[in-house]
């Protein structure tokens, strides 16, 4: 009897070992709204870009990726676009082979929600230069990253590790004059990465409008 049991459990135990990892993950889903830890692996995502193609983090493995949460109706976003501040940074980084993904998590009916063609038209109007505009109307990607404001910036290194998250600079205001003399955290973090250093300021409190998630 006990021998029979042993063999059975041997077999099932093997199956069980495979299930156990998944079981652990099931339990973790209870964890609330936790943002990703800086220094941890950035969560993968699978969302459509403005041209309708499905984009994932995995496809950019080996490249530095910048995520920019944006909402064209938000005055904080406008501060950085009307001044060309954001476009300049997009141009600099993409010229260096860095992937820049602008993410729109506004839900349908909320401020900043656009469909793909609208997103492309607006990007052209403001001369934005992202590598792609990701549309996240369900907010799944935004919530996975804990994106709270527009703008909210993330830098993922070529190994897929989140190395910076937070504000774009140290001036939490919508007033354009605050750009004068501001320290751009993204530029600073990229300089650290380029010099092979650890990112000195790896996490800051983001500022801006709330991300207009679906209720």
């Amino acid at each position, binding site marked *: 009897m006990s021998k029979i049991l042993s063999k059975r459990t041997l077999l099932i135990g093997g199956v069980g070992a495979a299930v156990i990892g998944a079981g652990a993950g099931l339990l973790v889903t209870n964890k609330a709204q936790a943002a990703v830890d800086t220094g941890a692996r950035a969560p993968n995502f699978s969302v459509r870009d403005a041209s309708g193609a499905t984009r994932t983090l995995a496809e950019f493995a080996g490249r530095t990726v910048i995520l920019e949460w944006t909402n064209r109706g938000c005055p904080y976003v406008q501060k950085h676009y009307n001044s060309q501040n954001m476009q300049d940074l997009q141009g600099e980084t993409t010229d260096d082979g860095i992937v820049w993904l602008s993410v729109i998590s506004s839900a349908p009916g909320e401020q900043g929600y656009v469909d793909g063609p609208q997103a492309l038209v607006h990007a052209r109007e403001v001369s934005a230069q992202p590598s792609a505009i990701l549309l996240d109307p369900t907010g799944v990607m935004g919530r996975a990253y804990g994106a709270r404001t527009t703008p909210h910036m993330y830098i993922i290194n070529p190994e897929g590790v989140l190395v910076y998250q937070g504000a774009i600079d140290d001036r939490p205001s919508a007033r354009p004059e605050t750009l004068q003399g501001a320290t751009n955290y993204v530029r600073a973090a990229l300089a650290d990465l380029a010099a092979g250093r650890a990112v000195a300021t790896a996490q*800051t409190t983001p500022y801006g409008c709330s991300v207009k998630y679906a209720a």
Partner: protein
Amino acid sequence: MIFAAALLAPLQSFAEPFRTENVETELHSARAAVAPGERFTVVLRQKIREHWHTYWRNPGDSGEPTEITWRLPAGYAAGEMQWPAPEAIPFSILVNYGYSGEVLFPVEITVPRNAPVGQSVTFNADLYWLVCSDVCIPEGGAVSLTLPVTSQGSDDTIWAPRIAAVVAALPRPTNAEAHIGTGSPGRLSVELANATAIRNPYFFPFSRDALNNAAPQSPRVGPSGLSFDLQPGIDDNLGRAALAGVIAYEVQAGGAWTRRAFEVNAQPGGPLPGTDAQGATLTDDFVGGAPEQIGGAGGTQTSESSGAGPAEAAGGGVTTLLAALAFAFLGGLILNVMPCVLPVLSIKALSFAGGAHAGEARRHGIIYLVGVMATFLALAGVLIALRGAGESAGWGFQFQAPWVTGGLGLLFFAIGLNLLGVFEIGGNAQGIGAGLASRGGDIGAFFTGALAVVAATPCTAPFMAFAVGYAVTQPPLATLAVFAGLGLGFAAPLVALSFMPALQRRIPKPGPWMERVKNVLAFPMFAAAVWLAWVFAEQTGAIGALALLSLALALSFAVYVARWGRFWLIAGVAVLALTAAFAWRPLAGVAPVEAVVAEAWSPERVEALRAEGKPIFVNFTAAWCVTCKVNEGVAFTPRVSAAFAERGIAYLKADWTNRDDIIAAALAEHGRAGVPLYLYYPAGGEPSVLPQLLTEGIVLDAIDGGGE
């Protein structure tokens, strides 16, 4: 003289307000006339449009505080703008701190000693604020206030009392002792008399970076004060630096609830005694509370609050960990009686009755313990690794849960079959030899432990949720310790049994009844499998249920025939593999979501689209048509739907699940008596019939060949 000033005042004192659509701003003075050398108070009043708000000095997760910049005549000086206690304003995953309705910000202004009496003085201020509802608008403008200067000055009869009340209600620094503890959450405890009589307490930090503003604060009160559980923000230095902010609460005064607030500057330290006897009273409309706690002081005990109990009561680091360990051990003990676990353990217990001599029983007990511990620690390791890899956040949208429920459902089904004696691989193994068999016994004991832990996972969510909830917020070592506590508690009963022959003797003598018990125990396992299958069907729909039941069927075939020898074993495994090849998609959580929205098919719709010159793809299908579902899973990939979208192909679906003569006629027209049938109409062309066994390539070729 005073009389004269009072007469003059209405003529000379006036304020220039500033209005936007959302905010009306105006300066008001407590003094109708000011005297040289005095200090008096003005207020900046914001009247905010309904459902909109402006922000406190720390705006919280988004927003920006109101700013005032004075332009004062020479010699005049203005103090800092003072901030009334704000409200917590939740918005999706954020919590902001600000004001709604009307807010008055007091500012003290000093009049120079040499201010010329008999003249008017004008105070100008430039303002900037952010006002938000679901959208935000930065606004700004200028306001001014003109007052006469008289030798004695005079109060403004309307505004003096109002401003006095506003100033009196400002949060003030107190001598109250306050401590902030380490950890996440860190416990903020504050001295306050009559704390048990207050309601709706909330802590507002001054620093934007100090706290996770959106986390519930779980306020508690006691005879000597109140306390909060605070989650650290970006600074992540709770308990290692002073924490300053405002505590607001309501207290009953003269029959009505009145809001009070005071400033605290908590020093690092353990919790103050007498500050957490019971949950604070939170009203239904209070936005700062966790919804579980609404309903009264010390009243509701949800699984969450009872789970957090020991940790809360203990407070500081080591004690919290010890309490969590004790709770984990207890939780582990209770896991033994869970319906998924009991059958597995009962059989193991019966094996002791099967005449195993003391030494062997003890060895098996130890090995079982090792199996349980190894599995629990592996579970902890997986958790830590997942957390390290940032997967916890990503898990939800990878939809891996169906694979877990499906896998466990199949596992329980297999265990049930074995308990019924449907398959006994042991029959094969028995002939191999005593040496191997006894080693098999050891390995068996190890895997009984492992299996019991795995089997426990779905039945024990409430307990595991607490342990995991506590563990994930802790450093890896503490996580491992909590899981070790769970494991020890879990293994304790059976290990005790294996070490106590006296207990073993109380188990009835072996006999045919053991077989019967074993068979009966199969049914709780099947019940668990049924429940999991239902959950799985909820997650994946009818197709998922079909896949899971097919797999269960193939699995039962494989394990049943395996006893007949190697050939049959291979055949069984082949059947299982073949089934899995077709059924893996829902199990793996790859929902065959058709990104291209299918329109309902009708001959009229086809004609209309052809008239527009649009290409059309028609899918004749039915829920009961296995080939159709396999085709849809295999061929209608995201690539295909992208290609449809790109080429502007209209995707029509004719659903023949129920009897439909029009669809039947259309099928007959193309020489078919049934589904599936796939038609592709190129723009302006005649339809081509696609093969009945579809692949992604076939679909792409068809639309490439005929479309352009």
